[in-house]
Every structure is written in structure tokens, then in C-alpha cells.
């Protein structure tokens, strides 16, 4: 008892003397105090001491990296540094410098490892729901139209519309895909992207396909709440033309990838329905149309740049008609949305990080992550930090790891070279191994310069250890080894991150349920105030 008191008082004495007579005692030696890591960390901390006590924002931008788990962030940041000729580990992705971060629990009501439909519904609507359903609560039975009636939930985008803000959705996936759809649609099944994807019974019971719900968003929202008058979503940019066009060759776009591009069996051309509805709106489907946009005079924009998902960033130049980058789409969306004095709500999804991971191609996932980072950086630089809350998050992670004991600066896509060595380290089986790997999936593939991750699906599953001697694992087409053979690599169940800057970002802290994201948006925009 006595000794403990002594120790405590001694510690107090030391700390007092540190502040009072630090110069004399020099507890921290100069080589510690002047160390770059030490001073840099002190500077970062000081920056964070400057707090913004404003909690209300005029605008909110939510960036969702589909499948962008923590290991993806770490390896993308290292790749970014290495592409700049640095060792890489010390680099930050632009949004990793945002002052506030939280860990987010991603599970769905009925699933330990979640999918995008359930997770994005949580972020957009403030409650957790089942896997595979969009904009409806857990009372729904997946695939059963009748069970969705009366269980539809309101989203941040809808509430922003009702409040009179401008709204926008940007995605590199099909715009009817789970993540973007959860901002505007209600569906008992994420796969009901157009009428041909729906069972007869669901159509008869009056359920609408997701593409129809996007184009008729204004009508359906006004029907749901009597007495409201909204003007519809201002900006919609992404892929997925096939769900908006009739199954008829004569409706093909110039860069159609199929003999018949459209999938709709109800003969409706939703792109022209949208144009009829918004006479001053602009519909674009290629890079040329996108480039010729005048955002000053355009108030409604609808862009569908691919029959299905847009190209991977690494593949973008190979598209026939050309596709804008996620950064270009974000910039254009902001230029249009910013014109509303009341403010705006924008959701931007990088949809293909997820797909490259599913295909087991780390290079593809990291390249799309860096393209996504560029979009976030540009949005941050082109909005007023005093009035715009920017949230960057993911919906879930992947079974993707950074492992072994590679030395500092070792190529992140390369083979493990131990500290103090120049040669690749050998595993117990006598063969070299990579830092990055997957627990499950299709496994090893050496597709060299192939930038389309999905080519993996035309190859045989080949899991287990391979002799990587003589194989360039840093090439775009290299697919990492995997342990468990599955038709595609899976999502993971661990937490993901939420990074935030701007008014209201102070609430982003701790470990939170994913549904908290909605409440942070709601709080910042005061969506339910009136």
C-alpha cells in the first residue's frame, strides 16, 4: 500500500517537473524529439486539437467503396506511395487524413457476413435489414413481393429531396445494382433490376423493377407521401443500360456489347421515358456526350455508360465509346448539384473494387481504390469544408490479407522479401509467397497484362500453393493464391472504416453499427427537422 502511493506521487512529481523544468531535465532526448516520426505525429495531433464545433452541414457527400475493407485501404495506400517512388507504408490515402474515423460493424440482420443490399440499406435508411433486400425492413421475405408492402423505409436521398436539396447518385457499377439502388428503390430482391428479372407473381402483385423505380422516382415518392412535391434526382451517372432498354436490337447503343443490348421484356425504353419527363434533362451514354456537357445549363443529367457495369479503371481506355472516370463523374455531378442554394446530397459508389476482389485480383481492386481516392480528393478540394460533410466508407470487406514479414518498401503486389534480404523468402514448402492473398476464391492465375479482372471466370479454379518462382506477381493480371476453392472470393465479416470531415463529422467516432451512418447524415442535414 505504501509503496504504491510512493510510486504514484513519484510519477506526479516527474510529470510536474516535465512541464515546469523540461529544459533542465531533458526527459525526451533530442534524437527522439527531433525524429521525423515524432515531430510529424505531434503536428498531426495539434491539427486535430483545432475542432470545428459546427454540427450542421449544407451538403453531404457519401462515398462508398464497395468491398473496400481495411486491408484494401492499407495495401492501396502502400501501392500509391510506391507508384510515387516511395517505400509506400508512410503514405496516406487522401481521406485517411480526414480528422474523424470510426469502425463500423457490417453484419446484416440475418447474416454474419453481409452483402451490399443489406449494408447500403442500413447506411441510407438507418436500420439494419436482411441480406439481399433493398429499402425494406427485416419483416420482408426475400423474393416475396407481397411481404415488402408496408415495409418500405425512407432513405436519406428521399428525405433530402423532400427538403428541397439537390440529389445525385454516381456509381461505376450498374446504377440499378444493390448499392446505388438502396438510395432510391424498395425491392424484396436485389436482383429485380428490370422487369425480366422478376417473377410473374411479383409483377402481378404490383412490385416495380429497380430501373423503373429510378426513372419514376419522383412519381413514386410523391405517391408515398401525400402533399409533398419533389423535383426528382438531379444527377444519375453509372452503368447498366440494359435494364432501361427494350429487348430489341433497334434500341442498341452504338457501343452495345451484345447483339441485343436491352433486357426489358415490357418494350419500354426508360431512357426516352426519362427524357420525356425531364424535357430540359440531358441523357448521355458515352465519353463524347459526357465531355460535351455544359454543367452551367444542365440541371438534370442521366448518364448510362455501359450495358452492364462500367469498366475497371485499368480497363477504361479499352471501352469502345469511352467512359468517364469516377473522378470526372463526381466532378460533373458536383458542378450541377452545387447550383442549389439549399444544398445537396450526393452518393458516389466505387462498385468494382468488390468485383476485382471477387475475381481474386488484388491489382484490379487496388487500382480502382486509387481511382476512387482521386474522386474523393477532388470532391474535397472542390467543396467548402465549412459547409460540406464528406463521409467515406465501405459496405463490407473481403477475405484479403497482408501477411508475412516483407521488408519496408517491398512491392506490395510482390513476393515477400524478408528484412535484410534481397531474395524472396521461402515458405516451408520451399517456394516463394506473396504478401497479399485471399482465404478463398478461384485462386492462382497468371494473366500477365490482362487488366480485366473478370477474365478469371473463364479460367479453371486453381487453389492451393503454386510455384511462383519466375512469375511476376506485380503484373495487372496476376491473381493471388487462395486456400478454399469457391466460384468467387467472398465478402468478409469484420469491421470496415468510416472516415469523415466537415460539419457533423465530430460524431464519427468509436465502434458503430452501420445504420449510424444514416443518422449522421440526417443530423448534419436536419432532414427530419421540419
Amino acid at each position, binding site marked *: 500500500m505504501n509503496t504504491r502511493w510512493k510510486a504514484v506521487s513519484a510519477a506526479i512529481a516527474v510529470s510536474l517537473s516535465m512541464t515546469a523544468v523540461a529544459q533542465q531535465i531533458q526527459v525526451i532526448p533530442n534524437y527522439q524529439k527531433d525524429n521525423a516520426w515524432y515531430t510529424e505525429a505531434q503536428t498531426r495531433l495539434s491539427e486535430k486539437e483545432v475542432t470545428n464545433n459546427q454540427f450542421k452541414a449544407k451538403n453531404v457527400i457519401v462515398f462508398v467503396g464497395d468491398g473496400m475493407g481495411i486491408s484494401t485501404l492499407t495495401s492501396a495506400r502502400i501501392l500509391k506511395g510506391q507508384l510515387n517512388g516511395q517505400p509506400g507504408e508512410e503514405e496516406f490515402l487522401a481521406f485517411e487524413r480526414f480528422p474523424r474515423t470510426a469502425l463500423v460493424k457490417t453484419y446484416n440482420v440475418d447474416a454474419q457476413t453481409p*452483402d*451490399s443490399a443489406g449494408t447500403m440499406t442500413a447506411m441510407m435508411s438507418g436500420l439494419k435489414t436482411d*441480406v*439481399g433486400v433493398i429499402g425494406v425492413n427485416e419483416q420482408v421475405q*426475400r423474393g416475396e413481393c407481397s411481404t415488402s408492402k408496408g415495409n418500405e423505409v425512407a432513405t436519406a436521398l428521399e428525405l433530402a429531396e423532400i427538403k428541397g436539396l439537390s440529389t445525385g447518385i454516381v456509381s461505376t457499377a450498374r446504377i440499378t*445494382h*444493390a448499392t446505388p439502388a438502396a438510395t432510391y428503390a424498395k425491392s424484396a430482391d436485389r*436482383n429485380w433490376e428490370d422487369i425480366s*428479372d422478376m417473377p410473374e407473381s411479383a409483377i402481378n402483385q404490383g412490385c416495380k423493377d429497380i430501373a423503373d423505380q429510378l426513372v419514376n422516382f419522383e412519381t413514386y415518392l410523391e405517391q408515398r407521401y401525400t402533399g409533398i412535391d419533389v423535383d426528382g434526382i438531379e444527377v444519375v451517372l453509372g452503368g447498366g443500360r440494359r435494364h432501361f432498354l427494350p429487348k430489341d436490337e433497334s434500341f442498341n447503343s452504338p457501343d*452495345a*456489347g*451484345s*447483339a441485343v443490348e436491352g433486357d426489358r421484356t415490357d418494350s419500354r425504353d426508360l431512357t426516352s421515358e426519362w427524357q420525356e419527363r425531364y424535357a430540359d434533362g440531358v441523357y448521355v451514354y458515352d465519353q463524347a456526350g459526357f465531355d460535351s456537357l455544359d454543367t452551367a445549363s444542365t440541371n438534370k443529367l442521366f448518364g448510362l455508360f455501359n450495358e*452492364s*457495369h462500367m469498366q475497371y479503371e485499368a*480497363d477504361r481506355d*479499352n*471501352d*469502345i465509346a469511352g467512359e468517364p472516370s469516377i473522378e470526372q463523374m463526381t466532378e460533373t455531378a458536383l458542378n450541377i448539384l452545387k447550383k442549389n442554394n439549399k444544398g445537396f446530397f450526393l452518393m458516389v459508389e466505387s462498385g*468494382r473494387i*468488390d*468485383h476485382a*476482389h*471477387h*475475381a481474386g485480383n488484388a491489382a484490379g481492386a487496388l487500382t480502382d481504390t486509387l481511382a476512387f481516392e482521386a474522386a474523393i480528393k477532388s470532391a474535397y478540394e472542390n467543396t467548402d469544408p465549412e459547409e460540406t460533410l464528406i463521409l467515406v466508407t465501405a459496405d463490407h470487406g473481403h477475405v484479403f490479407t497482408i501477411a508475412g514479414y516483407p521488408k519496408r518498401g517491398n512491392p506490395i503486389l510482390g513476393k515477400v522479401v524478408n528484412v535484410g534480404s534481397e531474395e524472396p523468402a521461402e515458405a516451408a514448402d520451399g517456394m516463394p509467397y506473396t504478401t497479399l492473398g485471399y482465404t478463398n476464391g478461384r485462386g492462382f492465375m497468371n*494473366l500477365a497484362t*490482362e*487488366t*480485366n479482372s*473478370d*477474365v478469371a*471466370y*473463364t*479460367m*479453371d*479454379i486453381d487453389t492451393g500453393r503454386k510455384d511462383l518462382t519466375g512469375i511476376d506477381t506485380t503484373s495487372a493480371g496476376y491473381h493471388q493464391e487462395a486456400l478454399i*476453392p*469457391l*466460384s*468467387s*472470393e*467472398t*465478402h468478409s465479416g469484420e469491421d470496415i472504416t468510416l472516415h469523415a470531415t466537415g460539419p457533423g463529422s465530430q460524431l464519427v467516432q468509436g465502434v458503430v453499427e452501420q445504420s449510424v451512418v444514416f443518422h449522421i447524415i440526417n443530423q448534419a442535414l436536419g432532414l427530419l427537422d421540419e
Partner: protein
Amino acid sequence: MWKILSILIIAITSTQVSAQSCDALWLTADYDIKHSTQAGNEQHTKMTVWRKPEHVAHQYAQTQITEMWQFVRQGMLKPTRYFDEHKRAIEYQPNELVHGKRETDWSYRNQLVSNQLIDSMNKVDERDSGCMKVVTYKKTLNGNELVLEWLPAYKLPLRFQRKDNQGNSIVWQQQSLTKDSDKVAAFFERRDNYKATDYADIGDDHTDPFLTNMVTQGFIEQGASGFYDTKGRAIKSEHTH
């Protein structure tokens, strides 16, 4: 034996269609694929080629899998794989010109033998004429002896044989060739109505029993289609990948 049978069938069917042209569109051709080993083991597989303009399908009745390629534009083919038993399809993106290591050669999928391979072979015989003209080509490729009996009018092999120097061989033997556009159209339409999943979306739906089943089936069995060498690589030309 097979040869004679097949010529007979062709003779009959071409008589039936003699009023029409003997062009290479809207046709169905059945093949027997015989794998024989030096030890005397023999294995037969059946496959059927279905053609309509800018579409070709290879149907494997035994596995109930049909592979289809759409010719989108020069250098771009869009593959679709139909699982006939499940009435489901997996759609792949058309391969871009710069990538198309596997699927840029329309002639290879459409004809089973690529123009490039035919051009590299030596013509050794020619018999019959018109629709029934058969040209025989030979070549030795990486220790394999290739013999092709080619039907130029239909752009399909009548017989294609590959023998390696260990005495193993594969023989593709055409058994019938018919031209019935209604039947062909119905074949493609039935498959077009299957529920299709974009290959990029497979990973997101591990709750779908069909997609989960793909785990064991894989997406492309080695040697399922076209002419492959002993390592399962497509025989297209001397520059195989």
C-alpha cells in the same frame, strides 16, 4: 465407318436443303469426339454446333452445358454459358481487342478450327464438289499429327484428327448436318429466356443455390469446347497460349 456414315447423312441432308443455298448460316451439326489412348482406352463425347448469324453455340448433352459466343464486332466476342439443366446462364463481357487472348478469334469458335490453323496446313486432297466438297489438310504441330477434312461450304470440319507421338489420339467426327432455321431459332430463344447472371455479380450472391453450385462445376471445363491439346490449351495455330 464414322466417315462413311457421316457422308451419307450429309448427302441426305444436303439433298433436303438443295433447294436452298449451302451457306454456313442457320445450321446444326452433330459431332462425336473420340479420345483413344495408346493403352486402348476409348471415350466418346457428343457435341452439337448451332449456328445463326453472328451466333454460335456448342452444346454438350452429357454435361447439359451450352457455350455460346456472339460476334459483337471485329475482334470482340461475347461468351455466354448456359446451364441447361438449371435453365440458368452466366454472361461474360465481350473481350476487347487488346485483351482477347482467348476469345478474339471468331473463326475458331464458329468453325471449330481457326482460319489461322487451316492456312498453316498443307492441302493434300480434294474430293466432291459444291456443298459436298471436302478438302483434306495435314500438318505436324509440336509432335502432333493433325489431319483435317474440311467442308468449305459449311465452314466446318467433317473430320479432324490429332495423334500424338505416344499413340494417343482425338477424332472429331461429324455425324450429321442439318439446316432448319426454325429449330435453330427455337434453340437460341429457349436459352435466351434463361435467368442470366453477369459473371461480375457471381460473388455477391452466395445465397443463390445455383451460383453456389458453380463452386464444384467451375465455369469452363478443360477441353469442353473446340479443339484442345493434351494440356487443355486451344489448338488455334502454332502460337498457342
